[in-house]
């Protein structure tokens, strides 16, 4: 069973403070993703990574940085948190596998609820 964990699960931060969200996966997947989920917007991609040392910008990268120091770990960093970054953040890992045609599944962590006051 795929395993993606996130920490912390809940976080309250002050405006202008630095926030680091951590993600760990034991699936040995190459690809990892950070999403935020807000009502009415579904899942929006912030940053992603193809492997250790790589980070790529997603659709909404402004105000966020990412770090992938190893295959297992992927962090999301908010250097100067703002109230507009209050959201639920999901980390996911994924890789390509065949089932008679190429398929692709992303496995999600339990999410981190971030509140910026």
């Amino acid at each position, binding site marked *: 069973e795929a395993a993606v964990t996130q920490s912390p699960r809940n976080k309250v931060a002050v405006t202008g403070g630095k926030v680091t969200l951590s993600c760990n996966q034991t699936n040995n997947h190459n*690809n990892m993703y950070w999403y935020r989920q807000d009502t*009415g*917007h*579904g*899942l*929006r*991609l912030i940053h*992603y990574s*193809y492997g250790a040392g790589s980070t790529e910008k997603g659709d909404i990268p402004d105000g966020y940085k990412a770090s992938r120091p190893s295959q297992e770990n992927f962090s999301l960093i908010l250097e100067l948190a703002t109230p507009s970054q209050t959201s639920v953040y*999901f980390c996911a890992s*994924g*890789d*390509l596998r065949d089932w008679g*045609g*190429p*398929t*692709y*599944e*992303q496995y*999600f*962590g*339990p*999410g981190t609820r971030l509140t910026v006051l």
Partner: protein
Amino acid sequence: QQQVRQSPQSLTVWEGETTILNCSYEDSTFDYFPWYRQFPGKSPALLIAISLVSNKKEDGRFTIFFNKREKKLSLHITDSQPGDSATYFCAASEGNYQLIWGSGTKLIIKP
């Protein structure tokens, strides 16, 4: 911008009825279309998926119908149960390991 659209935004169905959730896309390069389900307070998880080579994919009570010409998909849930109440996301991929997500349909099944 690549887009995946879902309708309706929310839907209430009686237990035992068939639920139909709709999805459409614009980019002709998409070739893989998964549906994810998210229960309240939980994370999304893959429910069922279809690729461009198929017109239909079944898994128990869940079936994807795919109209490639019109770039439309629908997810049918037969004999809908209260336990099916969740938000359903349609997504699309063009093989680059990224998923383009729809905004979801919130489904409530009333007993």
